Protein backbone atom coordinates (compact mmCIF):
# COMPACT_ATOMS: atom_id res chain seq x y z
CA UNK A 1 0.00 0.00 0.00
CA UNK A 2 1.17 3.49 -0.90
CA UNK A 3 0.57 5.39 2.32
CA UNK A 4 2.03 8.61 1.08
CA UNK A 5 -0.39 8.60 -1.82
CA UNK A 6 -3.30 8.01 0.57
CA UNK A 7 -2.16 10.94 2.71
CA UNK A 8 -1.67 13.17 -0.30
CA UNK A 9 -5.09 12.39 -1.73
CA UNK A 10 -6.78 12.76 1.67
CA UNK A 11 -5.16 16.05 2.63
CA UNK A 12 -5.74 17.52 -0.81
CA UNK A 13 -9.42 16.68 -0.47
CA UNK A 14 -9.59 18.01 3.10
CA UNK A 15 -8.38 21.40 1.89
CA UNK A 16 -9.77 21.02 -1.60
CA UNK A 17 -12.46 22.50 -3.78
CA UNK A 18 -15.23 20.24 -2.56
CA UNK A 19 -14.56 21.13 1.06
CA UNK A 20 -14.92 24.81 0.10
CA UNK A 21 -18.20 24.19 -1.73
CA UNK A 22 -19.69 22.27 1.18
CA UNK A 23 -18.35 24.70 3.75
CA UNK A 24 -20.09 27.57 1.94
CA UNK A 25 -23.32 25.62 1.48
CA UNK A 26 -23.27 24.74 5.18
CA UNK A 27 -22.50 28.33 6.24
CA UNK A 28 -25.72 29.29 4.49
CA UNK A 29 -27.60 26.50 6.22
CA UNK A 30 -26.09 27.54 9.53
CA UNK A 31 -27.68 30.96 9.06
CA UNK A 32 -31.02 29.32 8.22
CA UNK A 33 -31.13 26.35 10.54
CA UNK A 34 -28.48 26.96 13.17
CA UNK A 35 -29.27 30.57 14.01
CA UNK A 36 -32.85 31.16 12.88
CA UNK A 37 -34.35 27.68 13.08
CA UNK A 38 -35.52 27.71 9.46
CA UNK A 39 -35.63 24.21 8.01
CA UNK A 40 -34.35 24.83 4.51
CA UNK A 41 -34.15 21.50 2.69
CA UNK A 42 -33.57 23.17 -0.64
CA UNK A 43 -30.05 24.52 -0.31
CA UNK A 44 -29.13 22.60 -3.49
CA UNK A 45 -31.55 24.89 -5.33
CA UNK A 46 -29.57 27.94 -4.27
CA UNK A 47 -26.34 26.28 -5.41
CA UNK A 48 -27.91 25.38 -8.75
CA UNK A 49 -29.09 28.95 -9.24
CA UNK A 50 -25.61 30.22 -8.42
CA UNK A 51 -23.96 27.75 -10.79
CA UNK A 52 -26.30 28.34 -13.75
CA UNK A 53 -26.20 32.09 -13.19
CA UNK A 54 -22.46 32.22 -13.85
CA UNK A 55 -22.50 29.77 -16.75
CA UNK A 56 -25.54 30.87 -18.77
CA UNK A 57 -24.93 34.62 -19.07
CA UNK A 58 -21.32 34.13 -20.10
CA UNK A 59 -21.91 31.36 -22.62
CA UNK A 60 -25.28 32.31 -24.10
CA UNK A 61 -25.23 36.08 -23.78
CA UNK A 62 -21.53 36.88 -23.80
CA UNK A 63 -21.78 38.80 -20.56
CA UNK A 64 -18.71 39.29 -18.39
CA UNK A 65 -18.19 36.69 -15.64
CA UNK A 66 -18.02 39.43 -13.01
CA UNK A 67 -21.43 40.71 -14.02
CA UNK A 68 -22.65 37.11 -13.98
CA UNK A 69 -21.69 36.87 -10.30
CA UNK A 70 -23.97 39.82 -9.58
CA UNK A 71 -26.71 38.21 -11.64
CA UNK A 72 -26.29 35.06 -9.55
CA UNK A 73 -26.65 36.95 -6.29
CA UNK A 74 -29.67 38.79 -7.63
CA UNK A 75 -31.28 35.52 -8.77
CA UNK A 76 -30.72 33.84 -5.41
CA UNK A 77 -32.38 36.80 -3.65
CA UNK A 78 -35.38 36.43 -5.97
CA UNK A 79 -35.47 32.68 -5.26
CA UNK A 80 -35.35 33.32 -1.50
CA UNK A 81 -38.21 35.82 -1.79
CA UNK A 82 -40.25 33.34 -3.84
CA UNK A 83 -39.72 30.67 -1.19
CA UNK A 84 -40.19 32.92 1.79
CA UNK A 85 -43.14 35.13 0.87
CA UNK A 86 -45.75 32.37 1.03
CA UNK A 87 -44.17 30.15 3.66
CA UNK A 88 -42.47 32.23 6.33
CA UNK A 89 -45.78 33.16 7.92
CA UNK A 90 -46.54 29.48 8.35
CA UNK A 91 -45.06 26.92 10.71
CA UNK A 92 -41.51 25.76 10.19
CA UNK A 93 -42.45 22.42 8.64
CA UNK A 94 -44.08 24.13 5.66
CA UNK A 95 -40.82 25.81 4.72
CA UNK A 96 -39.13 22.40 4.77
CA UNK A 97 -41.69 20.96 2.35
CA UNK A 98 -41.69 23.95 0.03
CA UNK A 99 -37.90 24.25 -0.12
CA UNK A 100 -37.31 20.59 -0.91
CA UNK A 101 -39.87 20.81 -3.71
CA UNK A 102 -38.58 24.14 -5.01
CA UNK A 103 -35.02 22.86 -5.27
CA UNK A 104 -36.26 19.90 -7.30
CA UNK A 105 -38.26 22.24 -9.53
CA UNK A 106 -35.09 24.22 -10.21
CA UNK A 107 -33.21 21.06 -11.11
CA UNK A 108 -36.02 19.73 -13.32
CA UNK A 109 -36.32 23.02 -15.17
CA UNK A 110 -32.55 23.10 -15.66
CA UNK A 111 -32.51 19.62 -17.18
CA UNK A 112 -35.74 19.99 -19.17
CA UNK A 113 -35.69 19.70 -22.95
CA UNK A 114 -37.71 22.92 -23.30
CA UNK A 115 -34.85 25.17 -22.18
CA UNK A 116 -32.14 23.03 -23.74
CA UNK A 117 -30.78 25.91 -25.81
CA UNK A 118 -30.04 28.00 -22.74
CA UNK A 119 -29.54 25.54 -19.92
CA UNK A 120 -28.16 22.56 -21.79
CA UNK A 121 -30.79 20.01 -20.75
CA UNK A 122 -29.64 16.95 -18.88
CA UNK A 123 -26.11 17.33 -20.25
CA UNK A 124 -25.70 20.66 -18.53
CA UNK A 125 -23.28 23.30 -19.71
CA UNK A 126 -19.61 22.83 -20.37
CA UNK A 127 -17.51 25.60 -21.77
CA UNK A 128 -15.05 28.33 -21.21
CA UNK A 129 -17.27 30.52 -19.04
CA UNK A 130 -14.67 30.67 -16.28
CA UNK A 131 -11.69 31.90 -18.32
CA UNK A 132 -11.89 35.44 -16.96
CA UNK A 133 -11.36 33.97 -13.52
CA UNK A 134 -8.55 31.60 -14.40
CA UNK A 135 -6.75 34.22 -16.47
CA UNK A 136 -5.95 35.96 -13.19
CA UNK A 137 -4.29 32.84 -11.80
CA UNK A 138 -0.64 33.55 -10.87
CA UNK A 139 -0.06 29.89 -9.89
CA UNK A 140 -0.62 28.21 -13.25
CA UNK A 141 1.96 25.51 -12.57
CA UNK A 142 -0.07 24.22 -9.59
CA UNK A 143 1.29 22.67 -6.45
CA UNK A 144 2.98 19.31 -6.13
CA UNK A 145 4.37 18.23 -2.79
CA UNK A 146 4.45 14.77 -1.20
CA UNK A 147 1.44 15.58 0.96
CA UNK A 148 -0.51 18.13 -1.09
CA UNK A 149 -1.20 18.24 -4.79
CA UNK A 150 -3.36 20.67 -6.74
CA UNK A 151 -3.55 21.40 -10.44
CA UNK A 152 -2.97 25.02 -11.45
CA UNK A 153 -6.68 25.78 -11.77
CA UNK A 154 -7.58 23.94 -8.57
CA UNK A 155 -4.91 25.79 -6.63
CA UNK A 156 -6.36 29.12 -7.74
CA UNK A 157 -9.90 28.05 -6.77
CA UNK A 158 -8.65 26.72 -3.44
CA UNK A 159 -6.78 29.92 -2.54
CA UNK A 160 -9.55 32.32 -3.55
CA UNK A 161 -12.18 29.94 -2.16
CA UNK A 162 -10.72 29.72 1.34
CA UNK A 163 -10.20 33.48 1.43
CA UNK A 164 -13.86 33.85 0.54
CA UNK A 165 -14.85 31.34 3.23
CA UNK A 166 -12.78 33.24 5.79
CA UNK A 167 -14.34 36.58 4.84
CA UNK A 168 -17.89 35.25 4.92
CA UNK A 169 -17.26 33.48 8.22
CA UNK A 170 -15.89 36.67 9.74
CA UNK A 171 -18.92 38.70 8.66
CA UNK A 172 -21.20 35.91 9.95
CA UNK A 173 -19.38 35.99 13.27
CA UNK A 174 -19.87 39.73 13.63
CA UNK A 175 -23.52 39.47 12.65
CA UNK A 176 -24.55 36.61 14.91
CA UNK A 177 -22.88 38.30 17.86
CA UNK A 178 -24.72 41.56 17.23
CA UNK A 179 -28.20 42.49 18.51
CA UNK A 180 -29.43 41.36 15.08
CA UNK A 181 -28.02 37.88 15.71
CA UNK A 182 -29.66 37.89 19.11
CA UNK A 183 -33.05 38.45 17.51
CA UNK A 184 -32.31 35.59 15.11
CA UNK A 185 -31.46 33.15 17.89
CA UNK A 186 -34.52 34.29 19.81
CA UNK A 187 -36.70 33.53 16.79
CA UNK A 188 -35.20 30.04 16.70
CA UNK A 189 -36.30 29.58 20.32
CA UNK A 190 -39.84 31.01 20.13
CA UNK A 191 -41.14 33.40 17.50
CA UNK A 192 -44.28 34.37 19.39
CA UNK A 193 -42.23 35.62 22.31
CA UNK A 194 -40.12 37.71 19.93
CA UNK A 195 -43.25 39.21 18.38
CA UNK A 196 -44.52 40.15 21.82
CA UNK A 197 -41.38 42.26 22.23
CA UNK A 198 -42.13 44.32 19.14
CA UNK A 199 -39.86 42.63 16.57
CA UNK A 200 -41.03 42.02 13.03
CA UNK A 201 -40.27 38.30 12.96
CA UNK A 202 -41.34 37.84 9.34
CA UNK A 203 -38.82 40.43 8.16
CA UNK A 204 -36.01 38.81 10.15
CA UNK A 205 -36.80 35.35 8.83
CA UNK A 206 -36.78 36.72 5.30
CA UNK A 207 -33.39 38.34 5.90
CA UNK A 208 -32.05 35.04 7.18
CA UNK A 209 -33.41 33.14 4.18
CA UNK A 210 -31.87 35.66 1.76
CA UNK A 211 -28.46 35.81 3.44
CA UNK A 212 -28.15 32.03 3.76
CA UNK A 213 -29.41 31.62 0.21
CA UNK A 214 -26.90 34.10 -1.23
CA UNK A 215 -24.09 32.25 0.54
CA UNK A 216 -25.48 29.03 -0.95
CA UNK A 217 -25.39 30.54 -4.43
CA UNK A 218 -21.76 31.57 -3.85
CA UNK A 219 -21.09 27.90 -3.15
CA UNK A 220 -22.72 27.30 -6.54
CA UNK A 221 -20.30 29.78 -8.16
CA UNK A 222 -17.35 27.80 -6.80
CA UNK A 223 -18.95 24.53 -7.90
CA UNK A 224 -19.37 25.80 -11.47
CA UNK A 225 -16.00 27.56 -11.74
CA UNK A 226 -13.95 24.70 -10.34
CA UNK A 227 -15.38 22.19 -12.84
CA UNK A 228 -15.88 24.69 -15.66
CA UNK A 229 -19.16 22.94 -16.19
CA UNK A 230 -22.62 22.73 -14.67
CA UNK A 231 -24.43 19.39 -14.45
CA UNK A 232 -28.06 19.57 -13.27
CA UNK A 233 -27.98 16.26 -11.46
CA UNK A 234 -25.17 17.44 -9.17
CA UNK A 235 -27.75 19.68 -7.54
CA UNK A 236 -30.12 17.03 -6.23
CA UNK A 237 -31.40 16.56 -2.70
CA UNK A 238 -28.28 14.58 -1.76
CA UNK A 239 -26.26 17.79 -1.99
CA UNK A 240 -28.54 19.47 0.55
CA UNK A 241 -28.34 16.54 2.93
CA UNK A 242 -24.56 16.35 2.68
CA UNK A 243 -24.47 20.06 3.52
CA UNK A 244 -26.62 19.35 6.57
CA UNK A 245 -24.27 16.50 7.48
CA UNK A 246 -21.35 18.92 7.31
CA UNK A 247 -23.16 21.40 9.53
CA UNK A 248 -24.22 18.84 12.14
CA UNK A 249 -20.74 17.30 12.13
CA UNK A 250 -19.30 20.66 13.11
CA UNK A 251 -22.14 21.62 15.41
CA UNK A 252 -25.10 23.81 14.41
CA UNK A 253 -25.09 27.45 15.52
CA UNK A 254 -21.30 27.54 15.77
CA UNK A 255 -19.55 29.90 13.37
CA UNK A 256 -16.62 27.60 12.57
CA UNK A 257 -18.73 24.44 12.39
CA UNK A 258 -19.25 24.49 8.60
CA UNK A 259 -15.52 24.85 7.91
CA UNK A 260 -14.38 22.10 10.22
CA UNK A 261 -17.40 19.98 9.32
CA UNK A 262 -16.63 20.22 5.61
CA UNK A 263 -12.97 19.32 6.17
CA UNK A 264 -13.85 16.31 8.29
CA UNK A 265 -16.51 15.21 5.82
CA UNK A 266 -14.11 15.21 2.87
CA UNK A 267 -11.27 13.84 4.92
CA UNK A 268 -13.37 10.83 5.87
CA UNK A 269 -14.85 10.20 2.44
CA UNK A 270 -11.53 10.34 0.61
CA UNK A 271 -9.54 8.63 3.34
CA UNK A 272 -11.94 5.68 3.50
CA UNK A 273 -12.06 5.45 -0.28
CA UNK A 274 -8.30 5.60 -0.73
CA UNK A 275 -7.61 3.05 2.00
CA UNK A 276 -10.15 0.66 0.54
CA UNK A 277 -8.92 1.19 -3.00
CA UNK A 278 -5.27 0.73 -2.07
CA UNK A 279 -6.21 -2.23 0.10
CA UNK A 280 -8.10 -3.93 -2.71
CA UNK A 281 -5.52 -3.29 -5.43
CA UNK A 282 -2.62 -4.44 -3.25
CA UNK A 283 -4.63 -7.51 -2.12
CA UNK A 284 -4.55 -6.58 1.57
CA UNK A 285 -8.34 -6.74 1.39
CA UNK A 286 -9.31 -10.00 -0.33
CA UNK A 287 -11.36 -9.93 -3.53
CA UNK A 288 -14.21 -12.04 -2.17
CA UNK A 289 -14.82 -9.39 0.51
CA UNK A 290 -14.66 -6.16 -1.49
CA UNK A 291 -14.17 -5.78 -5.23
CA UNK A 292 -12.74 -2.67 -6.87
CA UNK A 293 -16.15 -1.65 -8.17
CA UNK A 294 -17.72 -1.79 -4.72
CA UNK A 295 -15.36 0.68 -3.10
CA UNK A 296 -17.50 3.66 -4.08
CA UNK A 297 -20.59 2.29 -2.36
CA UNK A 298 -18.83 0.90 0.67
CA UNK A 299 -17.16 4.21 1.52
CA UNK A 300 -20.64 5.74 1.87
CA UNK A 301 -21.75 2.85 4.06
CA UNK A 302 -18.78 3.33 6.35
CA UNK A 303 -19.33 7.07 6.26
CA UNK A 304 -22.94 6.51 7.33
CA UNK A 305 -21.81 4.23 10.13
CA UNK A 306 -19.34 6.84 11.31
CA UNK A 307 -22.01 9.53 11.33
CA UNK A 308 -24.34 7.31 13.31
CA UNK A 309 -21.64 6.75 15.89
CA UNK A 310 -20.98 10.47 16.05
CA UNK A 311 -24.65 11.22 16.61
CA UNK A 312 -24.78 8.62 19.38
CA UNK A 313 -21.63 9.64 21.21
CA UNK A 314 -21.33 13.30 20.30
CA UNK A 315 -24.74 14.53 19.19
CA UNK A 316 -23.76 18.18 19.58
CA UNK A 317 -21.10 17.92 16.84
CA UNK A 318 -17.47 18.89 17.15
CA UNK A 319 -18.00 22.44 18.46
CA UNK A 320 -21.39 22.07 20.07
CA UNK A 321 -22.15 22.17 23.76
CA UNK A 322 -23.96 19.08 24.96
CA UNK A 323 -25.64 20.95 27.80
CA UNK A 324 -27.04 23.46 25.34
CA UNK A 325 -28.34 20.69 23.10
CA UNK A 326 -30.13 19.07 26.03
CA UNK A 327 -32.01 22.32 26.61
CA UNK A 328 -33.72 21.81 23.31
CA UNK A 329 -36.04 19.33 25.04
CA UNK A 330 -37.87 22.46 26.32
CA UNK A 331 -37.92 21.19 29.86
Amino acid at each position, binding site marked *: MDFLFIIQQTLSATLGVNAIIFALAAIGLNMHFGYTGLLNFGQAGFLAIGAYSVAVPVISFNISLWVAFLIGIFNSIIFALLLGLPTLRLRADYLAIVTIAAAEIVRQIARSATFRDFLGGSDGITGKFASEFFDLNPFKQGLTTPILRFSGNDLWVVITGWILVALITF*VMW*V*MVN*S*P*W*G*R*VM*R*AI*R*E*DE*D*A*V*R*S*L*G*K*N*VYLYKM*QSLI*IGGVIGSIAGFVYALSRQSVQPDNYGTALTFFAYTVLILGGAARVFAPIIGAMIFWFLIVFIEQVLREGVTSDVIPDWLIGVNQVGQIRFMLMGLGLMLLMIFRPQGIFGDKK*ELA*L*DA*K*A
Partner: protein
Amino acid sequence: MQKRNSGADFALTTSQIPGSSKPDPILIADKITRQFGGLTAVNVNHVEIQRGSITALIGPNGAGKTTFFNLLTGYDSPNSGTWSFNGMALNGVPPYKVARLGMVRTFQLTKALYRLTVMENMLLGARAQKGESVLRSVFPWIWRSQEAAIRVKATSILKNFKLIEKQDDFAAALSGGQRKLLEMARALMVEPEMVMLDEPMAGVNPALKQSLLEHIKELRNEGKTVLFVEHDMDMVHEISDWVIVMAQGEIIAEGTPATVMGNNQVIEAYLGAHHDTDLTSEGA
Protein backbone atom coordinates in the same frame (compact mmCIF):
# COMPACT_ATOMS: atom_id res chain seq x y z
CA MET B 1 -47.13 64.92 36.37
CA GLN B 2 -50.43 64.35 38.04
CA LYS B 3 -50.19 61.41 40.38
CA ARG B 4 -52.91 58.99 39.49
CA ASN B 5 -53.27 56.91 42.53
CA SER B 6 -54.65 53.42 42.47
CA GLY B 7 -57.86 52.59 40.72
CA ALA B 8 -59.70 52.94 43.97
CA ASP B 9 -60.73 56.47 43.01
CA PHE B 10 -62.34 55.47 39.75
CA ALA B 11 -63.78 52.33 41.28
CA LEU B 12 -65.89 54.39 43.65
CA THR B 13 -67.52 56.39 40.89
CA THR B 14 -67.85 53.71 38.22
CA SER B 15 -71.03 51.69 37.99
CA GLN B 16 -70.44 48.02 38.63
CA ILE B 17 -72.22 46.56 35.64
CA PRO B 18 -70.77 44.67 32.65
CA GLY B 19 -69.50 47.08 30.02
CA SER B 20 -69.57 50.14 32.26
CA SER B 21 -67.70 53.18 31.04
CA LYS B 22 -64.54 54.32 32.86
CA PRO B 23 -63.39 57.90 33.38
CA ASP B 24 -60.11 57.46 31.47
CA PRO B 25 -60.02 54.20 29.50
CA ILE B 26 -56.74 53.14 27.87
CA LEU B 27 -58.31 50.15 26.11
CA ILE B 28 -61.81 50.00 24.67
CA ALA B 29 -63.26 46.90 22.98
CA ASP B 30 -66.59 46.74 21.16
CA LYS B 31 -68.68 43.81 19.97
CA ILE B 32 -65.78 41.40 19.72
CA THR B 33 -66.69 37.87 18.68
CA ARG B 34 -64.48 34.92 17.91
CA GLN B 35 -65.88 31.63 16.73
CA PHE B 36 -64.07 28.32 16.46
CA GLY B 37 -66.32 26.28 14.21
CA GLY B 38 -69.69 26.30 15.91
CA LEU B 39 -68.31 27.39 19.26
CA THR B 40 -68.38 31.04 20.21
CA ALA B 41 -65.28 31.41 22.33
CA VAL B 42 -65.51 35.15 22.82
CA ASN B 43 -68.55 37.42 22.58
CA VAL B 44 -67.71 40.66 24.34
CA ASN B 45 -70.21 43.44 23.81
CA HIS B 46 -68.30 46.31 25.35
CA VAL B 47 -65.44 46.65 27.78
CA GLU B 48 -63.18 49.45 28.94
CA ILE B 49 -59.97 49.24 30.93
CA GLN B 50 -59.12 52.15 33.20
CA ARG B 51 -55.71 53.73 32.67
CA GLY B 52 -53.30 53.29 35.54
CA SER B 53 -55.31 50.58 37.23
CA ILE B 54 -54.76 46.91 37.94
CA THR B 55 -57.62 45.05 36.35
CA ALA B 56 -58.13 41.32 36.80
CA LEU B 57 -59.83 39.19 34.16
CA ILE B 58 -61.23 36.09 35.84
CA GLY B 59 -63.56 33.29 34.90
CA PRO B 60 -63.84 29.53 34.90
CA ASN B 61 -61.77 27.38 32.54
CA GLY B 62 -62.87 27.77 28.96
CA ALA B 63 -64.42 31.19 29.58
CA GLY B 64 -62.42 32.68 26.71
CA LYS B 65 -60.01 34.79 28.76
CA THR B 66 -56.85 33.75 26.94
CA THR B 67 -58.61 33.90 23.55
CA PHE B 68 -59.69 37.45 24.41
CA PHE B 69 -56.09 38.26 25.31
CA ASN B 70 -54.88 36.84 22.01
CA LEU B 71 -57.43 38.93 20.14
CA LEU B 72 -56.51 42.15 21.90
CA THR B 73 -52.78 41.67 21.28
CA GLY B 74 -53.08 40.67 17.63
CA TYR B 75 -52.16 37.00 18.05
CA ASP B 76 -55.62 36.02 16.79
CA SER B 77 -58.20 37.86 14.70
CA PRO B 78 -61.83 38.21 15.74
CA ASN B 79 -64.75 37.39 13.46
CA SER B 80 -66.15 40.82 14.20
CA GLY B 81 -65.61 43.78 16.46
CA THR B 82 -63.35 46.75 16.97
CA TRP B 83 -60.96 47.71 19.72
CA SER B 84 -58.58 50.53 20.36
CA PHE B 85 -55.58 51.25 22.53
CA ASN B 86 -54.91 54.88 23.46
CA GLY B 87 -57.44 55.85 20.83
CA MET B 88 -55.61 53.89 18.12
CA ALA B 89 -57.71 51.26 16.32
CA LEU B 90 -56.02 47.88 16.54
CA ASN B 91 -58.00 45.89 13.97
CA GLY B 92 -55.60 43.91 11.83
CA VAL B 93 -52.52 45.32 13.56
CA PRO B 94 -49.88 42.55 13.85
CA PRO B 95 -48.60 41.57 17.31
CA TYR B 96 -45.22 43.25 16.93
CA LYS B 97 -46.85 46.58 16.14
CA VAL B 98 -49.22 46.21 19.08
CA ALA B 99 -46.15 45.77 21.28
CA ARG B 100 -44.50 48.84 19.75
CA LEU B 101 -47.60 50.88 20.52
CA GLY B 102 -47.00 50.09 24.17
CA MET B 103 -49.18 47.07 24.92
CA VAL B 104 -46.94 44.18 25.86
CA ARG B 105 -48.11 40.74 26.88
CA THR B 106 -46.79 37.63 28.56
CA PHE B 107 -47.95 34.09 27.97
CA GLN B 108 -49.82 31.48 29.98
CA LEU B 109 -47.18 28.91 29.04
CA THR B 110 -44.09 30.93 29.80
CA LYS B 111 -42.02 31.75 26.74
CA ALA B 112 -38.54 32.19 28.13
CA LEU B 113 -36.04 31.90 25.27
CA TYR B 114 -34.26 28.83 26.55
CA ARG B 115 -30.94 28.84 24.73
CA LEU B 116 -30.42 32.54 25.30
CA THR B 117 -28.97 33.65 28.59
CA VAL B 118 -31.08 35.54 31.10
CA MET B 119 -29.24 38.73 30.15
CA GLU B 120 -29.78 38.13 26.42
CA ASN B 121 -33.48 37.62 27.10
CA MET B 122 -33.54 41.02 28.75
CA LEU B 123 -31.47 42.84 26.13
CA LEU B 124 -33.76 41.52 23.43
CA GLY B 125 -36.67 43.40 24.96
CA ALA B 126 -35.31 46.92 24.40
CA ARG B 127 -36.91 48.91 21.61
CA ALA B 128 -35.43 50.68 18.60
CA GLN B 129 -32.04 49.00 18.78
CA LYS B 130 -29.69 50.18 16.06
CA GLY B 131 -27.83 46.88 16.08
CA GLU B 132 -30.97 44.97 15.25
CA SER B 133 -30.90 46.26 11.69
CA VAL B 134 -29.24 43.82 9.32
CA LEU B 135 -26.97 46.40 7.70
CA ARG B 136 -25.88 48.14 10.89
CA SER B 137 -25.26 44.85 12.71
CA VAL B 138 -22.02 44.48 10.75
CA PHE B 139 -20.59 47.71 12.19
CA PRO B 140 -20.38 47.21 15.95
CA TRP B 141 -19.19 50.78 16.60
CA ILE B 142 -22.62 52.02 15.49
CA TRP B 143 -24.53 50.12 18.16
CA ARG B 144 -22.01 49.43 20.91
CA SER B 145 -22.82 52.44 23.09
CA GLN B 146 -26.57 51.90 22.83
CA GLU B 147 -26.03 48.24 23.75
CA ALA B 148 -24.12 49.29 26.85
CA ALA B 149 -26.93 51.62 27.91
CA ILE B 150 -29.50 48.87 27.44
CA ARG B 151 -27.34 46.54 29.51
CA VAL B 152 -27.31 49.03 32.38
CA LYS B 153 -31.08 49.21 32.32
CA ALA B 154 -31.42 45.42 32.10
CA THR B 155 -29.07 45.02 35.04
CA SER B 156 -31.14 47.31 37.21
CA ILE B 157 -34.39 45.51 36.36
CA LEU B 158 -32.75 42.12 36.94
CA LYS B 159 -31.54 43.32 40.33
CA ASN B 160 -35.04 44.42 41.18
CA PHE B 161 -36.38 41.01 40.18
CA LYS B 162 -33.58 39.23 42.06
CA LEU B 163 -32.39 37.48 38.92
CA ILE B 164 -29.06 39.24 38.64
CA GLU B 165 -27.01 36.25 39.86
CA LYS B 166 -28.56 34.23 37.04
CA GLN B 167 -27.74 36.71 34.28
CA ASP B 168 -25.25 34.46 32.51
CA ASP B 169 -27.27 31.25 32.87
CA PHE B 170 -29.41 29.93 30.06
CA ALA B 171 -33.06 30.79 30.64
CA ALA B 172 -33.78 27.05 30.51
CA ALA B 173 -31.84 26.66 33.76
CA LEU B 174 -34.35 28.79 35.69
CA SER B 175 -37.21 27.37 37.73
CA GLY B 176 -40.77 27.79 36.49
CA GLY B 177 -41.40 30.71 38.83
CA GLN B 178 -38.16 32.42 37.88
CA ARG B 179 -39.10 32.10 34.21
CA LYS B 180 -42.37 33.92 34.96
CA LEU B 181 -40.34 36.64 36.64
CA LEU B 182 -37.96 36.80 33.71
CA GLU B 183 -40.80 37.04 31.23
CA MET B 184 -42.28 39.94 33.16
CA ALA B 185 -38.92 41.65 33.55
CA ARG B 186 -38.30 41.22 29.82
CA ALA B 187 -41.69 42.77 29.03
CA LEU B 188 -40.66 45.81 31.08
CA MET B 189 -37.60 46.28 28.86
CA VAL B 190 -40.06 47.24 26.09
CA GLU B 191 -41.19 50.17 28.29
CA PRO B 192 -44.86 49.36 27.87
CA GLU B 193 -47.74 51.60 28.85
CA MET B 194 -49.91 48.58 29.45
CA VAL B 195 -48.83 45.14 30.57
CA MET B 196 -51.01 42.12 29.84
CA LEU B 197 -50.15 39.17 32.07
CA ASP B 198 -51.64 35.79 31.26
CA GLU B 199 -51.73 33.81 34.51
CA PRO B 200 -48.62 35.31 36.09
CA MET B 201 -49.00 33.17 39.21
CA ALA B 202 -49.50 29.74 37.65
CA GLY B 203 -46.90 27.35 39.01
CA VAL B 204 -45.15 29.98 41.11
CA ASN B 205 -44.24 29.04 44.68
CA PRO B 206 -45.64 31.14 47.55
CA ALA B 207 -42.38 32.93 48.31
CA LEU B 208 -41.97 34.12 44.73
CA LYS B 209 -45.68 34.92 44.52
CA GLN B 210 -45.32 37.67 47.08
CA SER B 211 -42.49 39.28 45.18
CA LEU B 212 -44.42 39.02 41.89
CA LEU B 213 -47.36 40.78 43.57
CA GLU B 214 -45.07 43.57 44.67
CA HIS B 215 -43.72 43.95 41.16
CA ILE B 216 -47.22 44.24 39.75
CA LYS B 217 -48.18 46.87 42.30
CA GLU B 218 -44.99 48.73 41.49
CA LEU B 219 -46.02 48.87 37.84
CA ARG B 220 -49.21 50.62 38.81
CA ASN B 221 -47.28 53.04 40.99
CA GLU B 222 -45.19 53.89 37.95
CA GLY B 223 -48.41 54.80 36.15
CA LYS B 224 -48.61 51.68 33.98
CA THR B 225 -51.85 49.84 33.35
CA VAL B 226 -52.00 46.13 34.19
CA LEU B 227 -54.55 43.66 32.88
CA PHE B 228 -54.07 40.11 34.06
CA VAL B 229 -55.78 36.75 33.78
CA GLU B 230 -55.63 34.78 36.98
CA HIS B 231 -57.19 31.84 38.80
CA ASP B 232 -55.66 32.61 42.16
CA MET B 233 -58.49 34.46 43.94
CA ASP B 234 -56.34 35.57 46.85
CA MET B 235 -54.09 37.37 44.45
CA VAL B 236 -57.02 38.91 42.59
CA HIS B 237 -58.41 40.11 45.88
CA GLU B 238 -55.13 41.50 47.10
CA ILE B 239 -53.95 43.57 44.18
CA SER B 240 -56.71 44.34 41.73
CA ASP B 241 -58.64 47.60 41.66
CA TRP B 242 -61.20 46.22 39.31
CA VAL B 243 -62.34 42.75 38.33
CA ILE B 244 -63.94 41.66 35.08
CA VAL B 245 -65.59 38.24 35.04
CA MET B 246 -65.96 36.21 31.87
CA ALA B 247 -68.02 33.05 31.44
CA GLN B 248 -68.74 31.25 28.18
CA GLY B 249 -67.13 34.05 26.20
CA GLU B 250 -69.20 36.87 27.66
CA ILE B 251 -68.54 39.40 30.34
CA ILE B 252 -71.01 38.60 33.09
CA ALA B 253 -69.87 40.93 35.84
CA GLU B 254 -67.58 43.86 36.58
CA GLY B 255 -66.73 45.67 39.77
CA THR B 256 -64.48 45.91 42.75
CA PRO B 257 -63.08 42.60 44.01
CA ALA B 258 -65.38 42.55 47.02
CA THR B 259 -68.57 43.17 45.06
CA VAL B 260 -67.71 40.75 42.27
CA MET B 261 -66.90 37.88 44.57
CA GLY B 262 -70.19 38.30 46.35
CA ASN B 263 -72.07 38.32 43.05
CA ASN B 264 -74.37 35.29 42.71
CA GLN B 265 -73.92 35.06 38.96
CA VAL B 266 -70.17 34.83 39.42
CA ILE B 267 -70.43 32.14 42.04
CA GLU B 268 -72.77 30.21 39.77
CA ALA B 269 -70.43 30.54 36.80
CA TYR B 270 -67.58 29.15 38.85
CA LEU B 271 -69.35 26.47 40.82
CA GLY B 272 -72.53 25.75 38.84
CA ALA B 273 -76.06 26.84 39.69
CA HIS B 274 -76.73 23.88 41.94
CA HIS B 275 -73.50 23.82 43.84
CA ASP B 276 -75.20 23.87 47.21
CA THR B 277 -77.85 21.27 46.36
CA ASP B 278 -77.43 18.10 48.34
CA LEU B 279 -76.45 15.36 45.90
CA THR B 280 -78.06 12.58 47.92
CA SER B 281 -81.48 14.19 47.77
CA GLU B 282 -81.50 14.08 43.94
CA GLY B 283 -81.57 10.32 43.77
CA ALA B 284 -84.57 10.04 46.07
